[in-house]
């Protein structure tokens, strides 16, 4: 399975009307050609599925991509999971929503080899 880097960049919100490419997450995950995260591959080496949060004026935070109740989620130690609300195939340019404690934030997907 091909491991790739998924970059999530903050999409347009009230605070950032044109979005913000400097705010987001870098995720390493096994992705099949149609854009699905391959659960089986990930299970064999879950420690590879690292997530990094990148935000201005804040140090990098490292976490893991995990499977929670049938959803993918970004897990950082000591923080509530951020659920990836849409479980569809991921393609560059797509918009997805992260949900954490009821709060939703839109992100644009970029995929890099």
């Amino acid at each position, binding site marked *: 399975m091909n491991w790739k880097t998924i970059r999530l960049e903050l999409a347009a919100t009230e605070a950032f009307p044109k979005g913000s490419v400097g705010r987001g997450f870098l995720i390493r995950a096994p992705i099949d050609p149609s854009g699905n995260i391959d659960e089986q591959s990930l299970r064999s080496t879950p420690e590879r599925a690292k997530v990094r949060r990148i935000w201005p004026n804040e*140090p990098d935070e490292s976490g893991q991509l995990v499977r929670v109740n049938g959803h993918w989620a970004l897990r950082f130690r000591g923080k509530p999971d951020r659920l990836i609300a849409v479980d569809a195939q991921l393609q560059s340019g797509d918009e997805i929503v992260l949900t954490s404690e009821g709060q939703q934030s839109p992100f644009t997907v970029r995929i890099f080899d």
Partner: protein
Amino acid sequence: MSGILAQMRGDDDQRATGSQSGEAHLRSILATIPDAMVVIDERGIILSFSAAAEKMFGYREAEVLGENVSMLMPSPDRERHDGYLANYRRTGERKIIGIGRVTNARRRDGNTFPIELSVGEARIGEKRIFTGFVHDITERQEAEAQLKDLQSELAHVGRVSEMATLASSLAHELNQPLTAVTTYCQSIQRLAQADAVSDSRELIAEAAEEAAKEALRAGEIVRRLREFFGRGTSERQVEELPRLIAEANALALVGSRELGIDVQLVLDPEAQCVLADRVQVQQVLINLIRNAMDAMLGADERLLAISTSLGPPGLVTVTVQDTGSGISEAVADRLFQPFVSSKPTGMGIGLSICRTIIEAHGGRIWCEPAAEGGTIFRFTLPRVEDSDG
């Protein structure tokens, strides 16, 4: 580019009209400059992003205008950059403007790469802007780094052969007093066994005194030798550890684009200053980072984590951890000895140099297997309490 041009024009329409030809000229220069050029305002907000910068970082200018320039930097510079700017506004002390430095940048895909950054400052009316020229030194650094490696290896081979010469002359020098001690002791033994010990008492005392003198002489030779080795040429001064590490990391990151190594720097703000010979400690770091990169060549996940922490008391600990193949037990115990290598092409002197350097600084270097696979190297350096934070 429109952002910076608008900024440069300010609100003065008349001047704007007059500068139209200049603007076209500027545009043509900016479009052809081979180095990436990023212009920011006093708060670090991106005003202009050249075509070469778009290519280098993977963002279009329209996407990054209005963003904080720190988005192009990996941690810890990213979270500190606003502080650097504030510090410059407050003190006027130039740490990079007009000086330039080697550091790291981060592409949109998350990969970091070594750069040479030159920054210029300009005043436009009341406003101040900074122009950064970013030169990717991934390739150029390679040749320089190889040369440096070679030099350090040669220097070490030189030291080893010098030590061999020293050792033989030391053996010769020590042999004389030790032979004398043996002879005197044998005499004492013989005299003690004689029938009329009382007659020999004076001779025994004399021989014992001579033996003691010779033993002291041997001790003196050892002391002189220690002095000789202690009188190093090392130049230790107060150094900022984060900067020292960032620079060494940039120097070591040669070819990392191809290797796809993810570098993570986690630096404890408390572990700020150390007493060190910067070049020597960077040599240690470059060695450890290169080793880590080599060890990760065949690995699926290539994460290099460099971190600092306070302690043990009076010291700072630097950790370099990889997700590579790990070190075989056969080699692990002797890893820091000269001519022991786990690499087919290694001369096995890199880590022994590292140990020599770190121990000369009053620190310690060791390694341990990482729980999740890979290897962790740690070394300590004497900490200097911050004078001004």
